[in-house]
C-alpha cells in the first residue's frame, strides 16, 4: 500500500502532500522535511529507492522517488509494493500531469493544486493503485473539465437549470475486452457470472 505521496521542489517547499495513512499534523510536516533531507543528500546517479526515515516506520517502508528538474516526486510505500512498478507509476503520474496541463511545470502544481489532487485521485485511491492507463485518466479529467466549463457558463443561471447538465454522463470509452474471441475467459467461475 502507498502510505504517502509527497512532491516538493529543490528547496524543500511542499507542492503536493497526500497521506493515505494517518499521521498527526506536526508529524506530517516533519516527514516532509525528513524526506526532503534524505532525498536531497542523494546524487542523481544512485538508486531511486531508499529506506523510509524513522518517522515513517524505518526499514519496513521504502521511499521511491524521481527527480524532475525542479521537483521531487516521492512515494512512500510499504513492502507490498514493487519498487520498479512504483517508479513507473510516478512516471505515469507525471506524464498524465503533462498531458492535462500541456507542458506541466512547477507553477501548474502551485496554482492548480486542487486539479493535481483530482488527477492523483484517479491514479491512486485510498493508497491503492486505481488506474495506470494514461488515456483513461486523461479522459476522466477531460470529462470533469467539461463539467467545469459548462458550470462556469451557467453560473448565473438558477441552480435548477444546471441540474440538467449535471446529469450528463461521462463518455464511455470502449474498454471492454470482448473483441471477437479475444475476451478474457475466466473458467470455473461461470456460476458466479
Amino acid at each position, binding site marked *: 500500500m502507498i502510505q504517502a505521496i509527497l512532491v516538493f521542489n529543490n528547496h524543500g517547499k511542499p507542492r*503536493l502532500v*497526500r497521506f*493515505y495513512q494517518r499521521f498527526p*499534523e506536526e508529524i506530517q*510536516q516533519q516527514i516532509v522535511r525528513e524526506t526532503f533531507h534524505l532525498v536531497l543528500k*542523494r546524487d542523481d*546517479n*544512485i*538508486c531511486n529507492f531508499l*529506506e523510509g526515515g524513522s518517522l515513517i516506520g*524505518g*526499514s519496513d517502508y521504502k521511499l521511491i522517488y524521481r527527480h*524532475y*528538474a525542479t521537483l521531487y516526486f516521492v512515494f512512500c510505500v510499504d513492502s*507490498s509494493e*514493487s*519498487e*520498479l512498478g512504483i*517508479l*513507473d507509476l510516478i*512516471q505515469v503520474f*507525471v506524464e498524465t500531469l503533462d498531458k492535462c496541463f500541456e507542458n506541466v*511545470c*512547477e*507553477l*501548474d502544481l502551485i*496554482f*492548480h*493544486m*486542487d*486539479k493535481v489532487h*483530482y488527477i492523483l*485521485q484517479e491514479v491512486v*485511491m*485510498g493508497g*491503492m493503485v*486505481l488506474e*495506470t*492507463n494514461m488515456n483513461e485518466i486523461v479522459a476522466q479529467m477531460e470529462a*470533469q473539465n467539461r*463539467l*467545469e*466549463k459548462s*458550470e462556469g457558463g451557467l453560473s448565473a443561471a438558477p*441552480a435548477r437549470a*444546471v441540474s440538467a447538465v*449535471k446529469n450528463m*454522463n*461521462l463518455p*464511455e470509452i470502449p*474498454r471492454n*475486452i*470482448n473483441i471477437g474471441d479475444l475476451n*478474457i475467459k*475466466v*473458467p*470455473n*467461475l461461470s456460476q*458466479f*457470472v
Partner: protein
Amino acid sequence: MSDIVERTLTALPGLFLQSQPGGGPAAAKTPFSSRLGGLVRGVTALSSKHEEEKLIQQELSSLKATVSAPTTTLKMMKECMVRLMYCEMLGYDASFGYIHAIKLAQQGNLLEKRVGYLAVSLFLHESHELLLLLVNTVVKDLQSTNLVEVCMALTIVSQIFPREMIPAVLPLIEDKLQHSKEIIRRKAVLALYKFHLIAPNQVQHIHIKFRKALCDRDVGVMAASLHIYLRMIKENSSGYKDLTGSFVTILKQVVGGKLPVDFNYHSVPAPWLQIQLLRILGLLGKDDQRTSELMYDVLDESLRRAELNHNVTYAILFECVHTVYSIYPKSELLEKAAKCIGKFVLSPKINLKYLGLKALTCVVQQDPSLALQHQMTIIECLDHPDPIIKRETLELLYRITNSQNVTVIVQKMLEYLHQSKEEYIIVNLVGKIAELAEKYAPDNVWFIQTMNAVFSVGGDVMHPDIPSNFLRLLAEGFDDEMEEQQLRLYAVQSYLSLLDMENVFYPQKFLQVMSWVLGEYSYLLDTEKPEDVIKRLYKLLMSDSISSETKAWLIAAVTKLTAQAQASDTVERVIQEFTVSLDTCIRQHTFELKHLRENVEVMKSLLPVNKSCEDMVVDASLSFLDGYVAEGLSQGAAPYKPHHQRQEEKLSQEKVLNFEPYGLSFSSSGFTGRQSPAGISLGSDISGNSAEAGLKETNSLKLEGVKKLWGKEGYLPQKESAAGDGAEAPPLPPEVSPSENIDQAAAKRTQAQVLAPSKEEKEKQLLASSLFVGLGSESTVSLLGKPDVISHKFRRKSKVKAAKSGEAASTHNLTCSSLNSLSHVAYEENDYLTALQDGEDTESKDLPLGPELSDSESLSELPLAEKVSDCSLSALSLFADSDMEIFQPPSSAAASLTRDIASASCFLEETAGDMCSGRMEVCSDETVSVSSYKLWKDDCLLMVWSVTSKSGSQLKGADLDIFPAQNFKISEQRGCCLPVMEAGSTKNFQYSLQMEKPFTEENLSGFVNYQMVDTHSVQLEFSVNLSLLDFIRPLKISTEDFGKLWLSFANDVKQNIKISEPQAALPSALKMLQQKLRLHVVDIQGNEGLLACRLLPSTSSLLHCRVHADGLALWFRSSCPALPDYLSYQCQKVMMVGPGI
C-alpha cells in the same frame, strides 16, 4: 521528461502578470482565485521562515473572517477552501475551516462539492468526529443519478471513512458493483477493499461478489479486484486454491498481449496487472506442488516474454523470479530465474543492482551457490557509496553466515554500524550481530569482544532481549564446563580493563551487564581480590553519568561481592553514601546490604557463589505473617481481597447503565440473544458461596502443601547432551577449512575471467574467499528447505528438569483420567453403553443427579478399562516402541494380512470404535487409501493416519506430512517409517496435536508421499476437520476449587437458552453437556449446576448453569478471553439439537 518541467520559480512573477497559462480559465477570472495567486506570490517572495509565518497567519485570520461571515457565497467558499488547503500543506493549522469544508461538500453544486470533498479528505482523518457529519452526504451522493457525484462519494469512502459507519453505506456500495459504468464498479471494488482492510468481518458476506468482480468484462474492474485477492490470499491461501486456474488464465492472456493496446505501457501489456498476478500466484503455489504445477507454463512464458527493453519489464521479471522461487520448485524454471537474477546483479543500473541483491537475499537460503556465483559483485556492493545498497548487501551476507565466515561478516556489519546514525538501523543491525555472534562464535575472546562492541554501540536503543540473552548464556552455561568458566573469566577480565580506561563513557545497559557479570563471576579471578573490584564499582557509583537504575545494579553487585570479601572499607563508604540517598530503591538496597553485613552467615547463604541458576525455596505464601494477619482481623480489619475481586466489586457498584456496546452474537442464526451482563442476577447462590469460601481462605491462610519456587525455572545441573559433543567440536579456523579450497578455486575461476587483477582486485578476492567460505560445500543442498547445519557453539542447556516436574505432577491421575476421557468418547460412539445409560436414566429420574452420573461413569469405565489394558498389551506386541493405544484399522483390502497379527488386529478392530472416532477415509487412489482416526488422549489429541496399500504391489518409502497450521502445535509421535510396506498392509502415522489458539472449526491438511516400485513418487493430499471439542477434556475439581477458580477468571460470557420444561431439564442438560462436550459435572445444588473443563493443554474453563422459568442460563468463565465464546456456541449447538438426538 525532465525538459518538460524546465520552468522554475524564477519565471513566476512574469507569468503572473500575463494572467495564468494552462487550464482553469474559469477559475482564473474570479477575484478570489487571484487571491490564491497573491498568497503564493507573497510566500515565494519572502526570504525567511519567520516572515512566511506572519504572512500565513494574516491570511488565515482573513480567511477565518470570510468563511464565518454569513454573506460568503458557496463559490467564494470554494476559493477559500483551496487557500486553506494551501496553508495546511505548508503546515499551518486551519482547523476552523474543517466544518466549512464539510458544509461545502453537503450543500455545494458539483464543482463546489468536489472541492469540499477534497478538502475534507485532506483535512480530516478516519477517527475525526466531524466526519460523522459527512456520512449523510455520502449516502445521498451514492444514491445520486449523477456519475460524478457517485464517483466523488466512492473516492471519499475509500480515502477516509469512519469504521462504525460502514453499515450505513455498505449496501449502497454493494449495489454499485452491478453498475453499468466500469469506473463506478472499479471504485466500488476498491472502496470495499478498504472496508476489508479496516473491518474485515463486515464484508465477509460479499466475498462471492468479489469473485464476480474478478470475472468482470472490464479489465480495470478485474485489476481492482486483484488488490482484494492479493490481500485475502496473503491471509489464508488455502481458501483460494480453486481460483489458481483463473489467475493463470488471466495472466496468460495479459502476457499474450490480448488486452487492448490502451493497457500497454511502453509497449509492455499491463505491467502492473502482471505484477499483481505474479504475486498472487507466488502466494498460492507456496509449498503446494499441485497448484504450482498449474502455473509453470505461464511463468515460463512470462520469463520469456519479458524482453529487456524497459524498466517496467524488469519489474515483471523481478516478480517472476520471486514467484518461481516461492512456489514448489521446478528445476528448469529455477535455472532461468537464476539467470535473470544474474542480469539484475550485473546490471550497471543501480536500481536493478539493488533489486538483484534483494532477489539474492530472498533465494540465497534455497540456493547458496548463487551467492557464490556473484561473489565479486557482492564484494563491490559492500563498498558502494549508496547506503541502501550496502544495507541490502549486509542483509544478504547475514543470510549466508556460517561458522567459518562469521568473523568477516560481523566485522563488516560493525563497520557499517559505526557509520550509521539512524536509530532503527542500529537496533536492527545490533540484533543481527548479537544473533550471529551467539550462533557461530569461533572462540570466547571474539565473542566477548563482539558483544562489547554491540553493547557499546547499541547502548540503550537495542532490544532488551540482547543483554538478557547474553547474561543467561553466561549464567546457564553450556555443555563444556571448562569453556564455560573461561568465557566467564574472560568476560570479567575484559570488563575490568574497560572500566580501568579513563574518560570513557559506556551506555547504561552495558554498565548493567558489566556490574552483573562482575558481581557474579569476579570470584574466578586469581589476580584480584573482590575488594579491588568493589573499588572500581564504587568509582562508578560515585560518577554523575550513571542512572539510578544502573546504580541499583551496581549496588547489587557490591552486595554479592561483599559476601566474598572480608571487611572492606569501600563497602562501608558505599553504605554511608547511599543510606541517605534520595532514591528509595537505592536506599532500600543499601539498607539490605547494611543489615546483611551484620550477619555473615545469612549473607553467605543468601548470596552463594555461582548459584545464579539454582532455585531458591522461598515461602511465597508468607506464612510467617499469619499471626499478624489474624491479629489484624481480630481487631476488625477488613479481610484482604485480591485485586481482581476488588475491581469486580467496584464495577458491579458502578454498573448503572451499560455504555459498552453489546458484543456481537456469536452466530447469526436464530439463537436467543445473549443477555447483557446486568440481566442475570449477580448474587446467585453459587458465586456467593464461592466468594465466601475465598474469604475464609484468606482469613485462615491455609497453606499446607504450598511449595512455591522462587526464581527462574529450574535447570538440570548435570550435562545432558553427550551425544551433541561431536557436533560441538570447535569449528576449524578459516585457513584450514576443507571447503575453503573449493571456494578459492571458484574465486580463481572468476579471477581468470577478470583479466589481469590489480592489487585491489586481489584484496577483494581475498575478502570474497573469506566471505563465501562454507557455501560451496552446501551447494548441493535441497531446494525445498533451508539446510540446518548450524553447529551452535553455545548450546543452551535444555530445561529438562522443568518438564520433568510438570510430568510428575500430571502422572498421578494420568491413568484414570485417560480412561475417563475414553469413557466419555464411548458415550458418543458406543450404542451399547448409551442404551445402558438410557435405561438407567429412566429408572433413576428422581434420584439426585450427581451420584447418578458418577455411577454411570464408573459403570462404563469398568469394561473399558479391561479392554484398554488388553488392547494396549496387544498393541505393545505389534509396535514394540509404542506405549499408547494403537489399533489396527480395518483394512479395506484386508486380503493379505499376515496370520500372526490377525487375531490381535481383529481384537483391535473391535475396540477401535470404543475409544476413538470412527474410521474415516480421507483420500485414496487406486493403490493406497488413507484413513484417519482421532484419539482423544488426556493430554493431547492424537491423530492417527493409516496408509493402507490396496494393491498387491509394493509401496516404497511411504511418508506422510502435515502442513503446518497456525492454530495447532503438531508433533509427530514415533513415525516408524518402514522402508518397504508389506503389500496390502497398513502403516500408521501418529501426530499429537495441541491447540495454540481457540477456534471452532479448523482444517488440518497434509499429504502422503509414496513410491511405486518402478514408477516415481506419488503425492496424495488430504484434510481433516477438527473442532474445538476435540480439545476439550473434563476438569476434575472439587466445588471448593471451583469457587476459587471462578473468582480468578476474568473473562466471562452469559447466555440464555430456551428449553422446554426447564424444571426437568437440568439433569438431562447436564448429562448432555457431560457427554457431548466432555465437561465434568462438579456439583449440583438445587436448580444450579457447576461444570468444569479444560482446553488442552491447560486452559481451564468453568460453567455455571441455572434453570429458571424461561430456560437455562449459562455462565462461562475462563482464563482465556476467547474460550467462553466458543464454548457457549458449542453448548447452544448441543442444546438446540436437543436431548432426543
